[in-house]
């Protein structure tokens, strides 16, 4: 029985989002009544030993959170000082492809870069550097992406992407020519 409390604690700890009694029951291979008892006991134990985390219930789901007071304050200091990382090489390259070819979809970005770029694109969206620009007419009608005003500001492009640096040796290439060349090279790298 006390084992189930440890199991529930571990489940709540590794979960990426709050869990329902059903979720807990399935993962713990226990019935929901037992889960209810384990949740109660976990709450008591955490409170009893002045733990830094407490059990919380949010719209019928359970999760752990930093206890109010010093633990929660320290946790929010930690979040605030999360070091701001510059753009990774992968992010910069993806951004370059979007900036020079926009609008462009994820399958094409991945093809040109030679590696799946879904996570990188997602990160750029979250940072507000790119956003959606309709859907393409190629297979599967992929969502297209373009750079944003935030992008212009971060890169100091007051006149928008027209102010992007020319590419040495490809000065006269328009977006289509550039695109063709990138696809050819991607195929050569295969």
């Amino acid at each position, binding site marked *: 029985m006390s084992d189930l409390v440890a199991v529930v604690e*571990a489940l709540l*700890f*590794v*979960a*990426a*989002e*709050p869990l329902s009694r059903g979720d807990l029951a399935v993962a713990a291979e226990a019935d929901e009544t037992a889960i209810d008892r384990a949740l109660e006991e976990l709450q008591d134990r955490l409170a009893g030993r002045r733990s830094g985390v407490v059990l*919380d219930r*949010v719209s019928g789901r359970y*999760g*752990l*959170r*930093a206890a109010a007071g010093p633990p*929660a304050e320290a*946790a*929010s200091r930690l*979040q*605030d000082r999360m070091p*701001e990382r*510059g*753009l990774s*090489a992968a992010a*910069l*390259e993806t*951004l*370059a*492809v979007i*900036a*020079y070819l926009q609008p462009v979809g994820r399958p094409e970005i991945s093809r*040109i*870069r030679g590696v799946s770029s879904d996570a990188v694109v997602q990160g750029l969206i979250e*940072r*507000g*550097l790119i956003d959606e620009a309709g859907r393409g*007419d190629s297979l599967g009608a992929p969502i297209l992406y373009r750079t944003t005003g*935030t992008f212009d500001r*971060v*890169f*100091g*492009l007051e006149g928008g992407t027209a*102010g*992007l*640096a*020319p*590419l*040495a*040796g*490809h000065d006269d290439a328009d977006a289509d020519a*550039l695109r*063709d*060349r*990138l*696809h*050819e*090279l*991607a*195929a*050569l*790298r*295969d």
Partner: protein
Amino acid sequence: MSRSALDLDLDLDAFSGPFDLLLALVLRSELELVEVPVLEIVLAYLGRLEEEQAIDLEAVSEFLVLVAALCELKSRLLVDADDDELEEVDADEAAAELAARLAEYQRFKQAAAGLAERKLAAGLRVFRAGRAPLAPPRPPAELVEEQPARLAEAMLLLLEPPAVLGEVVIRGRTVPVRPFVDRFRRLLRTRASFTFDEEVRGLSVAEHAAAFVALLELVKREEVQVRQASLFGEIGVTRSRVAGLVLRATVENVVAGDREAVA
């Protein structure tokens, strides 16, 4: 349990019987290897593998070595015997190179086994990758100022052509057909037609040939129609609406014309 590849029963046009007999006949030059479809031998073997419960790596390796040898012999027969390049490959050198590679691979295979052991010793390690669900939301990340030149640098790296292969590699540089297929398709998405000659102007002979193969591929898939008014004339390419015999006849003309052009 699994059996040697040598007793694989074959039923080919040119030969019917066990694989080892086929090998013996080929090696004694009593059977023309050119007549033996290696693919069918492979398919027959795969068929047998499917029936077997477990895969015996020794037996499979043996089969691979034998089939690789057959492929090599056959390719030597098919390629012009005067080809110097093939003659230049020294068997000792090739074996030494292959052995060095296999030895290197062994080291990493050992390392992989080491990792597997470590994993076993570490046990099941489960943790959350990412922040806690109920943690206060992270303040929006402040973006550091960036230089547009870094974008251009990243782009130029992508535009860097793969280096020309060195002399160590005997194989000639190949030009892939696929980019031309993609490129022609893209062209025809925005326009109804284009002129082949204009699209390949300035390209190398090899690229020219690859582009032409790409065009044939699109014709075969009935995606485009091609027209050539006269021998050596410009080749016009249009989006295909209907496909049929007329189209194939046209292609044959084009192929004939281009062959003469190459000659």
